[in-house]
Protein backbone atom coordinates (compact mmCIF):
# COMPACT_ATOMS: atom_id res chain seq x y z
CA UNK A 1 0.00 0.00 0.00
CA UNK A 2 1.41 3.37 -1.00
CA UNK A 3 1.75 6.28 1.40
CA UNK A 4 -1.18 8.71 1.68
CA UNK A 5 -0.55 11.96 -0.22
CA UNK A 6 -1.62 15.33 1.13
CA UNK A 7 -3.32 17.09 -1.77
CA UNK A 8 -4.27 20.25 0.09
CA UNK A 9 -3.07 21.51 3.45
CA UNK A 10 -4.87 24.05 5.60
CA UNK A 11 -3.39 27.04 3.80
CA UNK A 12 -4.12 25.65 0.34
CA UNK A 13 -7.73 24.89 1.38
CA UNK A 14 -8.22 28.47 2.53
CA UNK A 15 -6.67 29.81 -0.71
CA UNK A 16 -8.90 27.56 -2.80
CA UNK A 17 -12.01 28.67 -0.91
CA UNK A 18 -11.05 32.33 -1.30
CA UNK A 19 -10.65 31.91 -5.04
CA UNK A 20 -13.95 30.02 -5.29
CA UNK A 21 -15.74 32.77 -3.36
CA UNK A 22 -14.35 35.35 -5.81
CA UNK A 23 -15.49 33.22 -8.73
CA UNK A 24 -18.98 33.00 -7.22
CA UNK A 25 -18.96 36.79 -6.83
CA UNK A 26 -17.73 37.26 -10.40
CA UNK A 27 -20.30 34.90 -11.92
CA UNK A 28 -23.26 36.36 -10.05
CA UNK A 29 -24.00 40.11 -10.17
CA UNK A 30 -23.74 41.91 -6.81
CA UNK A 31 -27.49 42.54 -6.70
CA UNK A 32 -28.46 38.88 -7.14
CA UNK A 33 -29.78 36.92 -4.22
CA UNK A 34 -27.19 34.21 -3.81
CA UNK A 35 -27.49 31.65 -1.01
CA UNK A 36 -25.18 28.75 -0.18
CA UNK A 37 -26.46 25.29 0.75
CA UNK A 38 -24.03 22.68 2.01
CA UNK A 39 -24.51 18.94 1.65
CA UNK A 40 -23.57 17.05 4.84
CA UNK A 41 -21.22 15.64 5.84
CA UNK A 42 -18.41 17.81 4.52
CA UNK A 43 -20.28 20.35 2.45
CA UNK A 44 -21.91 22.06 5.42
CA UNK A 45 -18.63 23.31 6.89
CA UNK A 46 -17.40 24.41 3.47
CA UNK A 47 -20.63 26.33 2.83
CA UNK A 48 -20.19 28.21 6.10
CA UNK A 49 -16.59 29.10 5.23
CA UNK A 50 -17.41 30.13 1.67
CA UNK A 51 -20.29 32.27 2.92
CA UNK A 52 -17.98 34.05 5.34
CA UNK A 53 -15.51 34.96 2.58
CA UNK A 54 -18.30 35.88 0.16
CA UNK A 55 -19.97 38.14 2.70
CA UNK A 56 -16.62 39.94 3.03
CA UNK A 57 -16.54 40.50 -0.73
CA UNK A 58 -20.14 41.65 -1.02
CA UNK A 59 -20.27 43.30 2.37
CA UNK A 60 -23.53 41.71 3.40
CA UNK A 61 -24.56 38.46 5.09
CA UNK A 62 -25.01 35.46 2.77
CA UNK A 63 -27.88 33.10 3.67
CA UNK A 64 -26.54 29.61 4.35
CA UNK A 65 -28.33 26.30 4.80
CA UNK A 66 -27.83 22.56 5.10
CA UNK A 67 -29.58 20.06 2.86
CA UNK A 68 -29.66 16.34 3.63
CA UNK A 69 -30.01 14.29 0.45
CA UNK A 70 -30.35 10.82 2.01
CA UNK A 71 -34.02 10.34 1.13
CA UNK A 72 -33.31 11.11 -2.52
CA UNK A 73 -30.39 8.74 -3.05
CA UNK A 74 -30.75 6.21 -5.84
CA UNK A 75 -29.07 3.33 -4.01
CA UNK A 76 -31.36 2.95 -0.98
CA UNK A 77 -32.36 -0.48 -2.24
CA UNK A 78 -28.81 -1.75 -2.43
CA UNK A 79 -27.36 -0.91 0.94
CA UNK A 80 -27.91 -0.58 4.66
CA UNK A 81 -30.04 2.51 5.30
CA UNK A 82 -27.68 5.51 5.44
CA UNK A 83 -27.76 7.88 8.38
CA UNK A 84 -30.00 10.93 7.98
CA UNK A 85 -28.56 14.34 8.72
CA UNK A 86 -30.52 17.43 9.70
CA UNK A 87 -31.79 19.74 7.00
CA UNK A 88 -31.89 23.43 7.88
CA UNK A 89 -32.72 25.97 5.22
CA UNK A 90 -33.76 29.13 7.09
CA UNK A 91 -34.77 31.07 3.96
CA UNK A 92 -37.01 30.70 0.93
CA UNK A 93 -35.06 29.16 -1.97
CA UNK A 94 -37.60 30.27 -4.58
CA UNK A 95 -36.17 32.93 -6.89
CA UNK A 96 -32.68 32.76 -5.42
CA UNK A 97 -29.47 31.54 -6.98
CA UNK A 98 -28.54 28.51 -4.91
CA UNK A 99 -24.93 27.40 -4.83
CA UNK A 100 -24.82 23.77 -3.68
CA UNK A 101 -21.59 23.10 -1.81
CA UNK A 102 -20.02 19.66 -1.44
CA UNK A 103 -16.57 18.45 -0.47
CA UNK A 104 -15.88 15.93 -3.25
CA UNK A 105 -17.52 15.57 -6.66
CA UNK A 106 -17.25 11.94 -7.77
CA UNK A 107 -20.07 10.02 -9.49
CA UNK A 108 -22.39 13.03 -9.46
CA UNK A 109 -25.17 11.02 -7.84
CA UNK A 110 -25.15 13.04 -4.63
CA UNK A 111 -25.53 16.23 -6.66
CA UNK A 112 -28.44 14.70 -8.55
CA UNK A 113 -30.08 13.76 -5.25
CA UNK A 114 -29.43 17.26 -3.90
CA UNK A 115 -31.14 18.91 -6.86
CA UNK A 116 -34.18 16.69 -6.33
CA UNK A 117 -34.20 17.34 -2.59
CA UNK A 118 -33.95 21.08 -3.15
CA UNK A 119 -37.07 21.00 -5.33
CA UNK A 120 -39.13 20.14 -2.26
CA UNK A 121 -38.25 23.51 -0.77
CA UNK A 122 -39.10 25.69 -3.74
CA UNK A 123 -37.95 26.67 -7.21
CA UNK A 124 -34.54 28.33 -7.25
CA UNK A 125 -33.82 30.72 -10.09
CA UNK A 126 -30.58 28.86 -10.76
CA UNK A 127 -28.64 26.07 -9.12
CA UNK A 128 -24.85 26.19 -9.26
CA UNK A 129 -22.37 23.68 -7.87
CA UNK A 130 -19.21 24.36 -5.85
CA UNK A 131 -16.88 21.52 -4.80
CA UNK A 132 -13.52 21.55 -3.07
CA UNK A 133 -12.28 18.49 -4.97
CA UNK A 134 -13.33 17.15 -8.36
CA UNK A 135 -11.96 13.64 -8.60
CA UNK A 136 -13.57 12.63 -11.90
CA UNK A 137 -15.37 9.34 -12.67
CA UNK A 138 -18.74 10.93 -13.33
CA UNK A 139 -21.70 8.59 -13.81
CA UNK A 140 -24.19 11.35 -14.64
CA UNK A 141 -24.07 14.43 -16.90
CA UNK A 142 -23.17 16.79 -14.08
CA UNK A 143 -20.27 19.24 -13.75
CA UNK A 144 -19.20 21.74 -11.12
CA UNK A 145 -19.28 25.51 -11.65
CA UNK A 146 -16.65 26.25 -9.01
CA UNK A 147 -13.82 23.82 -8.24
CA UNK A 148 -11.16 24.06 -5.56
CA UNK A 149 -8.86 21.49 -7.14
CA UNK A 150 -9.10 18.92 -9.91
CA UNK A 151 -7.56 15.68 -8.73
CA UNK A 152 -7.28 12.84 -11.25
CA UNK A 153 -7.81 9.66 -9.26
CA UNK A 154 -8.01 5.92 -9.72
CA UNK A 155 -11.21 4.17 -8.63
CA UNK A 156 -9.39 2.28 -5.89
CA UNK A 157 -8.19 5.51 -4.32
CA UNK A 158 -9.98 7.30 -1.54
CA UNK A 159 -10.09 10.99 -0.72
CA UNK A 160 -10.48 11.86 2.92
CA UNK A 161 -10.97 15.34 4.26
CA UNK A 162 -10.38 16.82 7.64
CA UNK A 163 -12.27 20.08 7.79
CA UNK A 164 -13.43 22.36 10.55
CA UNK A 165 -16.16 24.95 10.43
CA UNK A 166 -13.85 27.82 11.33
CA UNK A 167 -10.78 26.47 9.53
CA UNK A 168 -7.83 25.12 11.52
CA UNK A 169 -4.15 24.36 11.00
CA UNK A 170 -4.91 20.61 11.00
CA UNK A 171 -7.29 20.85 8.04
CA UNK A 172 -6.18 18.77 5.09
CA UNK A 173 -7.28 16.74 2.09
CA UNK A 174 -5.55 13.39 1.70
CA UNK A 175 -5.47 10.88 -1.15
CA UNK A 176 -4.83 7.24 -0.31
CA UNK A 177 -5.22 3.75 -1.69
CA UNK A 178 -8.24 1.89 -0.31
Amino acid at each position, binding site marked *: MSEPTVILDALAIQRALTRMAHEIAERNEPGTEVALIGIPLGGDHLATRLAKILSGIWNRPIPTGILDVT*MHRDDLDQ*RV*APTMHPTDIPFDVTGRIIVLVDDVLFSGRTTRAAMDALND*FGRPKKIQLAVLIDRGHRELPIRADFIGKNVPTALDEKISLRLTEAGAAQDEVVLKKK
Partner: protein
Amino acid sequence: MSWTKKHLLDIESLTAEEIVTVLDTARGFKAVGERAIKKVPALRGKTVVNLFVEPSTRTRTSFELAATRLSADIVNFSAEASSFKKGETLKDTALNLQALNADFIVIRHSASGAPHFLSRVLDAHVINAGDGAHEHPTQALLDTFTIREKKGRIAGLNVTILGDILYSRVARSDIWALTKLGAHVTLCGPSTLVPKTFEQMGCRVTYDMDEAIRDADIINLLRIQHERQRKTMFPSIGEYAQLFGLNKARLAKTRPDAIIMHPGPINRGVEIDSELADSPRSVILEQVTNGLAVRMAVLYLINGGKAPPDAAKG
Protein backbone atom coordinates in the same frame (compact mmCIF):
# COMPACT_ATOMS: atom_id res chain seq x y z
CA MET B 1 -24.72 3.72 13.68
CA SER B 2 -26.35 1.23 11.38
CA TRP B 3 -29.38 -0.98 11.20
CA THR B 4 -29.15 -4.38 9.53
CA LYS B 5 -32.34 -6.15 10.69
CA LYS B 6 -34.82 -7.20 8.04
CA HIS B 7 -37.87 -7.17 10.33
CA LEU B 8 -39.13 -5.36 13.38
CA LEU B 9 -40.71 -8.14 15.43
CA ASP B 10 -40.13 -7.06 19.01
CA ILE B 11 -38.06 -4.81 21.26
CA GLU B 12 -36.69 -7.70 23.29
CA SER B 13 -34.26 -8.73 20.54
CA LEU B 14 -33.02 -5.16 19.84
CA THR B 15 -29.83 -3.73 21.28
CA ALA B 16 -29.76 -0.33 22.96
CA GLU B 17 -27.78 0.96 19.93
CA GLU B 18 -30.47 -0.23 17.53
CA ILE B 19 -33.17 1.49 19.57
CA VAL B 20 -31.16 4.72 19.56
CA THR B 21 -30.66 4.40 15.78
CA VAL B 22 -34.45 4.33 15.33
CA LEU B 23 -34.89 7.34 17.63
CA ASP B 24 -32.18 9.36 15.84
CA THR B 25 -33.63 8.51 12.44
CA ALA B 26 -37.13 9.38 13.63
CA ARG B 27 -35.88 12.83 14.64
CA GLY B 28 -34.95 13.43 11.01
CA PHE B 29 -38.37 12.27 9.83
CA LYS B 30 -40.15 14.45 12.37
CA ALA B 31 -38.42 17.43 10.75
CA VAL B 32 -39.59 16.21 7.33
CA GLY B 33 -43.15 16.21 8.69
CA GLU B 34 -42.84 19.89 9.54
CA ARG B 35 -41.99 20.93 5.98
CA ALA B 36 -44.43 22.28 3.43
CA ILE B 37 -43.77 19.18 1.30
CA LYS B 38 -43.89 16.27 3.73
CA LYS B 39 -43.18 13.52 1.27
CA VAL B 40 -39.80 11.98 0.43
CA PRO B 41 -39.08 9.36 -2.25
CA ALA B 42 -37.16 6.86 -0.08
CA LEU B 43 -39.61 3.95 -0.61
CA ARG B 44 -40.86 4.87 -4.07
CA GLY B 45 -42.21 1.82 -5.87
CA LYS B 46 -42.49 -0.29 -2.71
CA THR B 47 -45.76 -1.82 -1.54
CA VAL B 48 -46.76 -1.93 2.11
CA VAL B 49 -49.66 -4.10 3.24
CA ASN B 50 -51.42 -3.31 6.49
CA LEU B 51 -52.64 -6.72 7.64
CA PHE B 52 -54.79 -5.89 10.64
CA VAL B 53 -56.46 -9.02 11.95
CA GLU B 54 -57.42 -7.15 15.10
CA PRO B 55 -59.14 -3.77 14.94
CA SER B 56 -57.05 -0.61 15.25
CA THR B 57 -57.51 2.90 14.01
CA ARG B 58 -54.57 4.95 15.13
CA THR B 59 -51.77 2.46 14.54
CA ARG B 60 -53.13 1.51 11.14
CA THR B 61 -53.63 5.14 10.11
CA SER B 62 -50.18 6.01 11.40
CA PHE B 63 -48.53 3.26 9.36
CA GLU B 64 -50.63 4.23 6.36
CA LEU B 65 -49.51 7.84 6.53
CA ALA B 66 -45.90 6.85 7.26
CA ALA B 67 -45.77 4.66 4.15
CA THR B 68 -47.45 7.37 2.07
CA ARG B 69 -44.97 10.01 3.24
CA LEU B 70 -42.15 7.71 2.12
CA SER B 71 -43.82 7.42 -1.32
CA ALA B 72 -44.71 3.73 -0.92
CA ASP B 73 -48.05 2.34 -2.03
CA ILE B 74 -50.21 0.99 0.75
CA VAL B 75 -53.03 -1.51 0.88
CA ASN B 76 -55.22 -2.02 3.92
CA PHE B 77 -56.40 -5.51 4.64
CA SER B 78 -58.77 -5.85 7.57
CA ALA B 79 -60.14 -8.91 9.24
CA GLU B 80 -63.80 -7.96 8.96
CA ALA B 81 -63.75 -7.87 5.19
CA SER B 82 -61.29 -10.64 4.61
CA SER B 83 -61.14 -14.30 3.91
CA PHE B 84 -60.24 -15.11 7.53
CA LYS B 85 -63.99 -15.18 7.93
CA LYS B 86 -64.07 -17.83 5.25
CA GLY B 87 -61.51 -19.97 7.04
CA GLU B 88 -58.25 -19.07 5.25
CA THR B 89 -55.15 -19.51 7.42
CA LEU B 90 -52.86 -16.62 8.29
CA LYS B 91 -50.06 -18.21 6.28
CA ASP B 92 -52.21 -18.53 3.17
CA THR B 93 -53.44 -14.97 3.48
CA ALA B 94 -49.91 -13.70 3.86
CA LEU B 95 -48.61 -15.77 0.95
CA ASN B 96 -51.38 -14.36 -1.20
CA LEU B 97 -50.36 -10.83 -0.24
CA GLN B 98 -46.77 -11.66 -1.02
CA ALA B 99 -47.82 -13.07 -4.37
CA LEU B 100 -49.01 -9.53 -5.15
CA ASN B 101 -45.38 -8.46 -4.59
CA ALA B 102 -45.86 -6.79 -1.23
CA ASP B 103 -42.49 -5.61 0.12
CA PHE B 104 -43.60 -4.92 3.67
CA ILE B 105 -46.29 -6.61 5.76
CA VAL B 106 -47.42 -4.66 8.82
CA ILE B 107 -49.32 -7.12 10.98
CA ARG B 108 -51.55 -6.79 13.98
CA HIS B 109 -52.87 -10.05 15.35
CA SER B 110 -54.48 -11.29 18.54
CA ALA B 111 -52.06 -14.23 18.69
CA SER B 112 -48.67 -13.59 20.26
CA GLY B 113 -45.89 -14.56 17.85
CA ALA B 114 -47.92 -14.13 14.65
CA PRO B 115 -45.40 -11.62 13.19
CA HIS B 116 -42.51 -13.96 14.03
CA PHE B 117 -44.33 -16.78 12.26
CA LEU B 118 -44.86 -14.62 9.15
CA SER B 119 -41.21 -13.57 9.11
CA ARG B 120 -40.28 -17.24 8.77
CA VAL B 121 -42.63 -18.01 5.89
CA LEU B 122 -42.41 -14.78 3.85
CA ASP B 123 -39.69 -13.01 1.91
CA ALA B 124 -41.22 -9.61 2.70
CA HIS B 125 -40.16 -7.37 5.57
CA VAL B 126 -42.45 -7.92 8.55
CA ILE B 127 -43.34 -5.26 11.12
CA ASN B 128 -45.16 -6.14 14.30
CA ALA B 129 -47.96 -3.64 14.91
CA GLY B 130 -49.09 -5.47 18.05
CA ASP B 131 -49.35 -9.21 18.69
CA GLY B 132 -51.69 -10.33 21.47
CA ALA B 133 -50.37 -9.40 24.89
CA HIS B 134 -46.78 -9.90 23.70
CA GLU B 135 -45.28 -6.75 22.15
CA HIS B 136 -46.10 -3.50 20.36
CA PRO B 137 -42.63 -2.37 19.34
CA THR B 138 -43.46 0.84 17.46
CA GLN B 139 -45.49 2.09 20.45
CA ALA B 140 -42.47 1.58 22.72
CA LEU B 141 -40.23 3.34 20.20
CA LEU B 142 -42.56 6.34 20.00
CA ASP B 143 -42.86 6.41 23.79
CA THR B 144 -39.08 6.42 24.24
CA PHE B 145 -38.76 9.00 21.45
CA THR B 146 -41.26 11.27 23.22
CA ILE B 147 -39.54 10.82 26.58
CA ARG B 148 -36.10 11.55 25.12
CA GLU B 149 -37.44 14.61 23.32
CA LYS B 150 -39.11 15.96 26.46
CA LYS B 151 -36.41 15.08 28.98
CA GLY B 152 -33.29 15.03 26.82
CA ARG B 153 -32.35 11.54 27.96
CA ILE B 154 -33.72 8.16 29.02
CA ALA B 155 -30.99 6.82 31.33
CA GLY B 156 -31.66 7.45 34.99
CA LEU B 157 -35.27 8.62 34.57
CA ASN B 158 -38.04 7.21 36.75
CA VAL B 159 -40.82 5.92 34.54
CA THR B 160 -44.02 4.66 36.15
CA ILE B 161 -46.37 2.55 34.07
CA LEU B 162 -49.85 2.31 35.53
CA GLY B 163 -52.80 0.06 34.96
CA ASP B 164 -53.42 -3.11 33.07
CA ILE B 165 -49.88 -4.45 32.75
CA LEU B 166 -50.76 -8.13 32.52
CA TYR B 167 -52.68 -7.84 29.27
CA SER B 168 -50.63 -5.00 27.83
CA ARG B 169 -48.27 -5.50 24.92
CA VAL B 170 -47.44 -1.80 25.23
CA ALA B 171 -46.21 -2.34 28.79
CA ARG B 172 -43.99 -5.25 27.77
CA SER B 173 -42.41 -3.38 24.87
CA ASP B 174 -42.03 -0.21 26.95
CA ILE B 175 -40.34 -2.15 29.75
CA TRP B 176 -37.86 -3.72 27.32
CA ALA B 177 -37.03 -0.44 25.62
CA LEU B 178 -36.79 1.66 28.77
CA THR B 179 -34.71 -0.79 30.79
CA LYS B 180 -32.34 -1.36 27.84
CA LEU B 181 -31.79 2.41 27.74
CA GLY B 182 -31.20 2.64 31.48
CA ALA B 183 -34.48 4.01 32.88
CA HIS B 184 -35.88 2.89 36.24
CA VAL B 185 -39.30 1.39 35.56
CA THR B 186 -42.01 1.09 38.22
CA LEU B 187 -45.23 -0.80 37.57
CA CYS B 188 -48.43 -0.18 39.49
CA GLY B 189 -52.07 -1.28 39.30
CA PRO B 190 -54.42 -3.82 40.82
CA SER B 191 -52.41 -6.84 41.97
CA THR B 192 -54.44 -9.06 39.66
CA LEU B 193 -53.19 -7.03 36.69
CA VAL B 194 -49.61 -6.41 37.88
CA PRO B 195 -48.17 -9.77 38.91
CA LYS B 196 -44.88 -9.73 40.81
CA THR B 197 -43.32 -11.84 38.04
CA PHE B 198 -42.73 -8.60 36.13
CA GLU B 199 -39.88 -7.91 38.53
CA GLN B 200 -37.94 -10.47 36.49
CA MET B 201 -37.95 -7.96 33.60
CA GLY B 202 -36.00 -5.56 35.80
CA CYS B 203 -38.88 -3.42 37.10
CA ARG B 204 -40.17 -2.48 40.49
CA VAL B 205 -43.74 -3.52 41.29
CA THR B 206 -45.89 -1.61 43.77
CA TYR B 207 -49.60 -1.44 44.50
CA ASP B 208 -49.62 2.01 46.09
CA MET B 209 -50.50 4.53 43.41
CA ASP B 210 -49.33 7.62 45.31
CA GLU B 211 -45.98 6.04 46.10
CA ALA B 212 -45.59 4.84 42.51
CA ILE B 213 -45.91 8.31 41.00
CA ARG B 214 -44.31 10.42 43.74
CA ASP B 215 -40.81 10.47 42.23
CA ALA B 216 -41.76 9.72 38.64
CA ASP B 217 -40.41 11.78 35.75
CA ILE B 218 -42.86 10.05 33.44
CA ILE B 219 -46.34 8.78 34.29
CA ASN B 220 -47.44 6.40 31.56
CA LEU B 221 -51.08 5.40 31.88
CA LEU B 222 -52.38 2.34 30.13
CA ARG B 223 -55.91 1.72 29.01
CA ILE B 224 -57.99 -0.82 30.85
CA GLN B 225 -58.53 -3.37 28.11
CA HIS B 226 -62.08 -4.50 28.58
CA GLU B 227 -61.82 -6.72 25.54
CA ARG B 228 -58.84 -8.72 26.76
CA GLN B 229 -59.73 -9.48 30.36
CA ARG B 230 -62.28 -11.45 32.25
CA LYS B 231 -64.64 -9.45 34.41
CA THR B 232 -63.15 -10.76 37.64
CA MET B 233 -59.79 -8.93 37.50
CA PHE B 234 -61.04 -6.01 39.62
CA PRO B 235 -64.41 -5.31 41.23
CA SER B 236 -65.57 -2.28 39.25
CA ILE B 237 -64.46 0.51 36.95
CA GLY B 238 -65.48 2.97 39.67
CA GLU B 239 -63.22 1.34 42.20
CA TYR B 240 -60.37 1.21 39.70
CA ALA B 241 -60.71 4.92 38.98
CA GLN B 242 -60.71 5.66 42.69
CA LEU B 243 -57.63 3.58 43.48
CA PHE B 244 -55.55 3.94 40.32
CA GLY B 245 -57.04 6.77 38.27
CA LEU B 246 -54.88 9.87 37.85
CA ASN B 247 -56.66 12.95 39.16
CA LYS B 248 -55.72 16.48 40.16
CA ALA B 249 -55.18 15.68 43.82
CA ARG B 250 -52.86 12.81 43.00
CA LEU B 251 -50.96 14.79 40.38
CA ALA B 252 -50.40 17.58 42.91
CA LYS B 253 -48.28 15.18 44.94
CA THR B 254 -45.92 14.38 42.05
CA ARG B 255 -42.89 16.19 40.69
CA PRO B 256 -43.97 19.40 38.96
CA ASP B 257 -42.10 18.47 35.79
CA ALA B 258 -43.51 14.95 35.55
CA ILE B 259 -45.25 14.40 32.22
CA ILE B 260 -48.32 12.30 31.51
CA MET B 261 -48.36 9.80 28.66
CA HIS B 262 -51.03 7.45 27.35
CA PRO B 263 -50.91 5.23 24.26
CA GLY B 264 -54.61 5.83 23.58
CA PRO B 265 -57.44 5.37 23.17
CA ILE B 266 -58.14 7.07 26.51
CA ASN B 267 -60.93 6.02 28.83
CA ARG B 268 -61.65 9.51 30.18
CA GLY B 269 -62.66 9.36 33.84
CA VAL B 270 -61.21 5.87 34.31
CA GLU B 271 -57.42 5.85 34.14
CA ILE B 272 -57.20 9.64 33.82
CA ASP B 273 -59.41 12.63 34.63
CA SER B 274 -60.67 14.25 31.49
CA GLU B 275 -59.22 17.61 32.51
CA LEU B 276 -55.70 16.19 33.00
CA ALA B 277 -55.72 14.49 29.61
CA ASP B 278 -56.05 17.94 28.04
CA SER B 279 -53.61 19.70 30.39
CA PRO B 280 -50.17 21.01 29.43
CA ARG B 281 -48.61 18.17 31.45
CA SER B 282 -50.07 15.69 29.01
CA VAL B 283 -48.06 14.78 25.88
CA ILE B 284 -50.67 12.34 24.59
CA LEU B 285 -51.18 14.06 21.24
CA GLU B 286 -47.45 14.60 20.73
CA GLN B 287 -47.10 10.83 21.09
CA VAL B 288 -49.36 10.50 18.06
CA THR B 289 -47.24 12.95 16.01
CA ASN B 290 -44.07 11.19 17.08
CA GLY B 291 -45.57 7.81 16.23
CA LEU B 292 -45.73 8.83 12.59
CA ALA B 293 -42.04 9.83 12.55
CA VAL B 294 -41.02 6.63 14.33
CA ARG B 295 -42.95 4.45 11.88
CA MET B 296 -41.35 6.26 8.94
CA ALA B 297 -37.97 5.58 10.54
CA VAL B 298 -38.77 1.88 11.00
CA LEU B 299 -39.94 1.43 7.41
CA TYR B 300 -36.90 3.32 6.12
CA LEU B 301 -34.39 1.38 8.23
CA ILE B 302 -35.69 -2.14 7.65
CA ASN B 303 -35.85 -1.44 3.91
CA GLY B 304 -32.06 -1.53 4.01
CA GLY B 305 -31.95 -4.60 6.27
CA LYS B 306 -31.35 -8.15 5.15
CA ALA B 307 -32.08 -11.46 6.85
CA PRO B 308 -28.98 -13.08 8.27
CA PRO B 309 -27.63 -15.69 5.80
CA ASP B 310 -28.30 -18.56 8.19
CA ALA B 311 -31.95 -17.65 8.75
CA ALA B 312 -33.88 -20.84 8.18
CA LYS B 313 -37.04 -20.68 6.15
CA GLY B 314 -39.95 -22.39 7.86
